[in-house]
């Protein structure tokens, strides 16, 4: 196979991992919203935890994006 073609295919495959991060981030915000509607008075105190969980989850999606960027531009 042409190495350039393999590179582009690899970058595309690496981006699939971001779908997982999308599911995770959606779960976090969905559950936060569901819990916040049940008990709105406790919601404000958990906002920091929400952002922390969001950041940690999104980091994994960022790693797969990083692989894609490295394949496209650096390697």
């Amino acid at each position, binding site marked *: 196979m042409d190495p350039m073609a393999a590179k582009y295919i690899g970058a595309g495959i690496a981006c699939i991992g971001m779908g997982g991060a999308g599911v995770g981030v959606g779960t976090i915000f969905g559950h936060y919203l569901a819990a916040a509607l049940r008990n709105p008075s406790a919601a404000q105190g958990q906002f920091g935890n929400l952002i922390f969980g969001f950041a940690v989850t999104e980091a994994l999606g960022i*790693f797969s994006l990083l692989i894609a960027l490295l394949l496209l531009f650096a390697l």
Partner: protein
Amino acid sequence: MAIDPIHQFEIKKFFTIGQFGPLELAFTNSAAFMFGAVALIVGGLVLVTAGRGLVPGRMQSVAEVTYEFVGDMIRQTAGEDGMRFFPLVFTLFSFILVLNMLGLIPGFFTVTSQIVVTAALALIVFVTVIGYGIWKNGFRFFRIFVPSGVPIYILPLVTLIEIISFLSRPLSHSVRLFANMLAGHITLEVFAGFIGLLATGLGIFGFVVGILPLGMTVALMALELLVAFLQAYVFTMLTCIYLNDALHPGHGH
């Protein structure tokens, strides 16, 4: 008219200041926008708080609300003694927020879409956390790698994971901001480019259909405004959470 969405991130050299071996020190559009952002923040804050009214006017309350916003963020995540890092955290927040917002103005350069800038900001936080953590807590700082209440037989594995996750922090911290700004601006540029393609390619019919990508661009602009604020907030919030590790190792998040 061809679409070149990467073109907007090109660094243009205004003039060269000096040459250090193979490295060239030049004043670029990136540096110009950073200077502009700093001038905007410092000038704006000095100007609106010059009156020092006991009852703040409209502009003064903007400055005070921003101060309280960042202050509350630190107190909630890093505790009262985290306030000693207020200057660092407030600087990061205002710098990133203003640069993100400036980048949204059409034709302006987005400094935070350069990985070298975000990596430098993330490394400042990373080095501060390690340096202050070891200076304040000594060897006890390394307790952040050994969470309490974990069964002894999985403790080595958990410690290994904690070390890897600690070392990957500056990576995810910087790439998050960079990737969000880069992807957002490329998307905006691509949709804005569709308008030109339709108008030049299809004539009168293209002008009519071109309303669709125009509407999309306006909607995306609103989304990017939200993202610009949210990413500045997330970057600052994570800074506070990491500083909490340096201040209180062994408990918290």
